[in-house]
């Protein structure tokens, strides 16, 4: 008997629930005119939007969006991973730009249910980046600026590629973490940077994207240049000093013997944004100082 | 009307082990006090688990008022017989009263709450076992003797015709042993319940029991049941326990005193 009552209760609940509390219909999607209140949910998206000359239209960004300088003072709607939905809705945006990974995709779905226009972009490699720039240009009403940006990126990249094309390719070990030692493998965009900068990833194909490596593998791959990314809130000179001390333990490596240990600004080489080509150029300058006429 | 308990050619063996109880048959009348005695490992506890329906016999039948025990649902079994174990671990801090109230689980209505009848039964049981002053204590804070009395109270509150106990005087001092047996005897006499208890103390069995079931290992010696005077003879105790004893009589009471091991 009691189970029957229980079942009835459950059934009525599910049947009646949504009917009693039907979601109110908000305004429909707004007509397509150039958005005036844009929120970007990732630093690279901020760089793209600002690069299109829309800095004034950006009403909010995420923490760690620090480029260009003008966005530092913009309100924040949470961090890249931990976004604050009510802060986003409270800004009444007419366009939200998000990345295509799971959390931001879920968030985009919830925003769309509240009739907030959202676009998500998967930016995994350089072509994705160019595509995203084009698409953002289109929806923000700046297609010409977007085309210009894409062309200048392609032109700058081609220039670096042409400079290093005939030079011998040094083997590069790109360390992303020292303890335990992990390096960039072949299936990463770091690998794309190394190859376009005229180098060769010292680590061969691996199962992991960023494989942890042992001393034996480090010695076997004989890198001629070792690259580290600047850690957050580290002084570059301090990190370079530490890196030199650390790598001294492998003093048979060519890179250590010739002291070709480099610390690169992670904004340039770790962020799939418009400055990535500058990252390639900086890397190339370190790999081929003679070709670029800079002191090693 | 036949006997309350009718055990027919009962056999039992644990999985992968030899036969522990072999072709045991006996019957018990309602309202009797039966002691189950025998050396360690002879299957006393196993027998009462079989009687209480916890274990299923390998062969034979256990009939309680003509019905097979292991054919009954746990609830209907719990309204006919109550079991007091040697020890029960209490994981969470239930009070004495709450513990005894659990005896009424099989009697609860669909809302799952005790009626006044249930509460009265529990109160009677607490008074009878002289544990009413402990009612609000946590069961974990009781001494061994108090704990044993509380679990007897719970068995009483279950309001059954049959009470089965596994060594109720285990770990108790002399005074508390006597107290427990006096309590059981008065329950038998006043309320007419059938009591089946395992005991290691053959003198207690001699004084309190109407009949003794002496379980014996091996095939040369059969298990016997009967009045304690007849069952607990010097020869039989020597054969079953391997101990030489003397029977002494004082004021028409018989006592058994061990002398030493058999050579």
């Amino acid at each position, binding site marked *: 008997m009691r189970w029957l009552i229980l079942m009835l209760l459950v059934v009525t609940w599910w049947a009646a629930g949504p009917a009693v509390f039907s979601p109110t219909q908000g305004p429909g999607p707004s007509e397509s005119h150039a958005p005036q209140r844009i929120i970007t949910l990732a630093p690279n998206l901020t760089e793209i939007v600002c690069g299109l000359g829309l800095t004034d239209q950006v009403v909010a960004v995420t923490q760690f969006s620090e480029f260009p300088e003008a966005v530092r003072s913009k309100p924040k709607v949470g961090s890249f991973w*931990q976004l604050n939905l009510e802060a986003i809705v409270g800004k009444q945006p007419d366009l939200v730009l998000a990345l295509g990974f799971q959390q931001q995709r879920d968030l985009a779905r919830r925003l769309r249910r509240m009739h907030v226009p959202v676009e998500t972009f998967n930016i995994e490699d350089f072509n994705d980046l160019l595509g995203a720039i084009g698409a953002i240009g289109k929806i923000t009403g700046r297609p010409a600026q977007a085309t210009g940006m894409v062309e200048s990126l392609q032109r700058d990249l081609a220039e670096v590629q042409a400079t290093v094309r005939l030079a011998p390719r040094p083997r590069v070990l790109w360390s992303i973490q020292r303890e335990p030692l992990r390096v960039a493998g072949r299936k990463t965009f770091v690998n794309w940077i190394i190859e376009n900068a005229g180098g060769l990833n010292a680590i061969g194909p691996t199962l992991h994207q960023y494989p942890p490596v042992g001393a034996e593998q480090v010695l076997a791959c004989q890198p001629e240049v070792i690259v580290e990314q600047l850690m957050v809130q580290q002084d570059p000179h301090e990190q370079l000093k530490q890196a030199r001390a650390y790598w001294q333990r492998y003093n048979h490596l060519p890179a250590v013997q010739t002291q070709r240990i480099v610390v690169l600004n992670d904004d340039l080489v770790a962020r799939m944004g418009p400055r990535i080509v500058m990252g390639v150029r900086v890397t190339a300058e370190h790999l081929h100082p003679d070709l670029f006429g800079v002191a090693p | 009307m036949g006997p309350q308990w009718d055990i027919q050619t009962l056999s039992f063996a644990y999985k992968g082990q030899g036969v522990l109880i072999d072709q045991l048959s006996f019957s018990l009348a309602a309202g009797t006090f039966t002691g189950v005695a025998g050396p360690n490992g002879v299957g006393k506890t196993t027998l009462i688990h079989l009687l209480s329906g916890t274990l299923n016999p390998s062969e034979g039948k256990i009939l309680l008022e003509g019905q097979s025990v292991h054919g009954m649902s746990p609830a209907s079994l719990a309204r006919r017989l109550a079991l007091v174990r040697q020890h029960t671990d209490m994981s969470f801090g239930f009070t004495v009263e709450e513990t005894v109230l659990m005896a009424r689980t099989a009697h609860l209505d669909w809302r799952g709450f005790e009626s006044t009848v249930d509460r009265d039964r529990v109160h009677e049981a607490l008074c009878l076992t002289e544990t009413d002053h402990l009612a609000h204590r946590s069961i*974990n804070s009781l001494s061994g003797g108090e704990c044993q009395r509380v679990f007897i109270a719970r068995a009483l509150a279950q309001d059954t015709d049959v009470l089965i106990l596994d060594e109720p005087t285990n770990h108790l001092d002399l005074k508390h042993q006597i107290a427990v047996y006096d309590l059981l005897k008065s329950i038998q006499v006043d309320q007419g319940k059938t009591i089946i208890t395992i005991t290691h103390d053959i003198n207690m069995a001699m004084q309190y029991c109407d009949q003794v079931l002496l379980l014996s290992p091996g095939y040369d010696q059969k298990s016997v049941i009967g009045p304690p005077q007849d069952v607990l003879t010097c020869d039989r105790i020597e054969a079953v326990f391997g101990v030489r004893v003397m029977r002494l009589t004082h004021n028409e009471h018989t006592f058994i005193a061990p002398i030493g091991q058999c050579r």
Partner: protein
Amino acid sequence: MRPLLTPGRLVRLVLAAALLMVSVMAACCMVGTETVSLKAVFAHQTPGQPNPDYEIFVKIRLARVILAVIVGAALACSGAVFQGLLRNPLADPYILGISSGAGLGAMVAVMLGIQWTLWGRSPIAVFAFAGAVGTVALVWSIGRVAGKYHVTGLLLAGVVVNAFFSALIMFLTSIANSSQIQTTLFWLMGNMTEETWDVLWFSGGLVCAGAVGLFFLAPKLNAISLSDSDARNLGIHVTAVRVCAFGMAAMITACAVSLSGLIGFVGLIIPHAIRLIWGPDHRLLIPLSALVGGTFLVLADTVSRVVVAPAQLPVGVVTALVGGPIFIVLLIRHNRCLGGRP
């Protein structure tokens, strides 16, 4: 000394806890990074005109507060049941491998990069739910093979399956890319998100039904929390009760986990706190755990929303940081033993 549990006392305590929960919910709806005017929220809706106050108050905060209630109630309620069924004060809703099963499901969903949704739920939620339910079924069947010592067998099966699945998660983590790792990590830490009303109704109904079903098993759970054979002698069909109780507790836990990831601590300390104050009777423990667990998670989630604003903390961090000290204070003040003999 505590009075015996009567229906009247139960109703009084449950009503008081429900009242507390509703007032906490109302108060927490008023807290947030944005300022919301109640007048604007309930003002007449003009079609085609966006009302951000309404959107924030009803669709974001209220939805989220209700979600927290559902998840907190489910976890605390199933924690109480698991502790009783396994007779283990250390048990929590995740003890039978639900956490690692759900984690593995979520990880697989992230790694496969699945895009579709099922009834408005993200692939992570769907896979986590399937992983949780599948793991409980697996642990249950391993525990059955272990046979006679059912509780120990179940616990051991839970530990082994947990370890095995955790190893699988670690393996997948080591070959995943960084955004996949981050996604999974944040999911594992436990997060509250704003769900649609359909999802809230469905899971709220499921959790309510589970809690009510468990409440009706409460007198039997009392006896089972002593020992299986004792419970049987008291007239309880132990296997049937156990299957039902495990099934319902696992179901509402899986539901909670798929909604919010792994939120620790609620399922462990809320039932203990209730036991310390009001005693171990499951008839009171189950409804009060559900209500207090819901209230606690609403509070913890509100803290996680505002304390590092505009960003948010994973709510699992807050439950452990806030819950731990509160629980220690309770333990000292009530000074009663939680398990075993003193």
